[in-house]
């Protein structure tokens, strides 16, 4: 018997929702924030922290501040779209513009000074290149 996201939704009180809404229980939804700053402060800083320095417990959230992995703009776009390990994907909830805005915000703040902004069109192309998961 298959009991996919349904059971998780039930576990967590989302019994009020139906059909595809169950699949949205954990990560997927939509966000009203549009600017990079608003998205960072409304979504990302829950884990990466208000100062973007990450945090360490039994596991860790990586710092985005002064992070050399952000050198190539494609990399953070892919991580946001697909997720990585414990990090959920935001490809199904962020628009191309939201992905571009938040990546550009992080790459030009918190001690990062990358000037080659990513465009929504570039996000769109990258999104299309991903295999469905």
């Amino acid at each position, binding site marked *: 018997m*298959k*009991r*996919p*996201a349904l*059971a*998780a939704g*039930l*576990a*967590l*009180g*989302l*019994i*009020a*929702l*139906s059909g595809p809404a169950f*699949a*949205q*229980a*954990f*990560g*997927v*939804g*939509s*966000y009203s924030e549009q600017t990079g700053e608003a998205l960072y*402060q*409304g*979504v*990302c*800083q*829950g*884990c990466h*922290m*208000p100062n973007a320095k990450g*945090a*360490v*417990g*039994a*596991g*860790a*959230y990586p710092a985005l501040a002064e992070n050399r992995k952000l050198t190539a703009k494609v990399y953070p776009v892919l991580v946001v779209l697909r*997720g990585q*390990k*414990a*990090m*959920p*994907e935001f490809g199904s*909830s962020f628009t191309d513009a939201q992905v571009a805005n938040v990546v550009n915000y992080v790459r030009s703040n918190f001690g990062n000074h990358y000037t080659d902004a990513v465009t929504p069109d570039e996000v769109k192309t990258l999104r299309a290149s991903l295999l469905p*998961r």
Partner: protein
Amino acid sequence: MYEAMSSLAYAGESGYTGPPNLSGDVKGASVLILGSGLAGMTSAYELRKAGYKVKILEYQDRPGGRNWSLYGGDTYTELGGFTQNVAFDKGLYLNPGPWRIPYHHYGILHYCKLLKVPLEPFIQSNYNAYVHSTKAFGGKPQRFRHVQADYQGYVAELLAKSTRQNALDQSVTKEDQEILLESLRGWGALDKNYEYRLGEASSERRGYESDPGGGLTSAPTPSQPLGMQDLLRSRLWRSIGAGNGYETQQSLFQPVGGMGMIGKAFGAELKDLIQYNSKVTDIRQDAKGVTVTYHDTKTGGAPRQASADWCICTIPASVLSQIPITVGAPMKAAIDALSYGASVKVGLQFKRRFWEEDENIYGGITYTDQPNSIIAYPNSGYFGGGKGVILGAYAFGSSAYELSSLSPKDRVAKSLEYGANVHPQYMSEFDTGASVAWHRVPWTLGCAGSWTEALRAEHYDDLCALDGRIVLAGEHASRIPAWQEGAVLSALDAIRRLHQRVLAG
């Protein structure tokens, strides 16, 4: 004897088949268990009983893992260093994680009985609580009872109308249509004309405007149903099925004094086996055994090592994916594939139990379209006066991310703001609050593994397989994710397979 009886009672039911039968000579084999949550402690309890040498390494300074309650006097520091000093009154609490146990979660209920953890009813459905939308009925909360009765009544009326207009002739025989009509009248509280309208029939479901009484002032006044169009467009019907799910149908239970009572009792039973404040940094296996490197987070010092013949690892995949571990590529890929969901709970203590005193709501849940999602009332302590702690938010999805991004203090403030739209007493009666955002919990980095059907098809079997001398357990290694039962069943399945391997030599 008790366990033998349990085995019989459970035979053939659900995923739980009674306590595991781990008979046979284990020849002094040792098992190192990582994590003292329910999966780890279930494993330890049963393996010790079967004759294994057992040791548990635990990151925290307490047993239970996500089985956890926050009480007054507790201090909780989330990732980012935000510290809360919980100030609830004695006996009051917030269950940050699991908070209810369905009657058919036989595994966890078995261990509650075994450990003598007293249980009491958890109220899932309260017809006198509210369903609320900021976009309907002027933002005024509606009694669950009214919306439930009216929705059912109108659906019955429409179906009766279709039947009588011969619209169902292709689907239902004439003879059966009579039976259907009879059932719709009863089910929907319709009048003799098969209409759902103001009157005794509908008021026996939705309640009266003024209730029948005694003596000379006893005549009741029926209540006016909500308009059908208003009701449909309100979308409040989204919330009235909440108690219909297999896992939310009555009866449900909660431990007296907080869900964390299970973890405490388990921890006391296994106190000689658990080593707290141990942060695992490396998990290695070879043909002879498993060696785990860990740091003592309290005393510091050089890394230490613990070795055993076998290892049951219950560390959440969110954390485990960051720890070097010698397992095969399929299990590693499975660990790395699982992200962890956001969820936020906020507990609000009020100076008096106004939901009971003013609104006659005793336990159960109010549903709202605001980001706090629900307001859940305490399921015990009725009529005793004094303070009470409400679950003021239980958020998921995008709302949970947004609440997680706030400081604990701001999460409480937001929950008050949302809740005041349902209960105007909120602001004047508020006393103190506490919140847990699961993405900021240092030892899980999320509330539960976010399986999708596709991920499960690709990775689930590899995640659960015995890899050499290591096997994983926990809610993430179950098909009941985010439920405690999943953790227990996962552990029982893992130790049965491990035991078979040990006996096979």
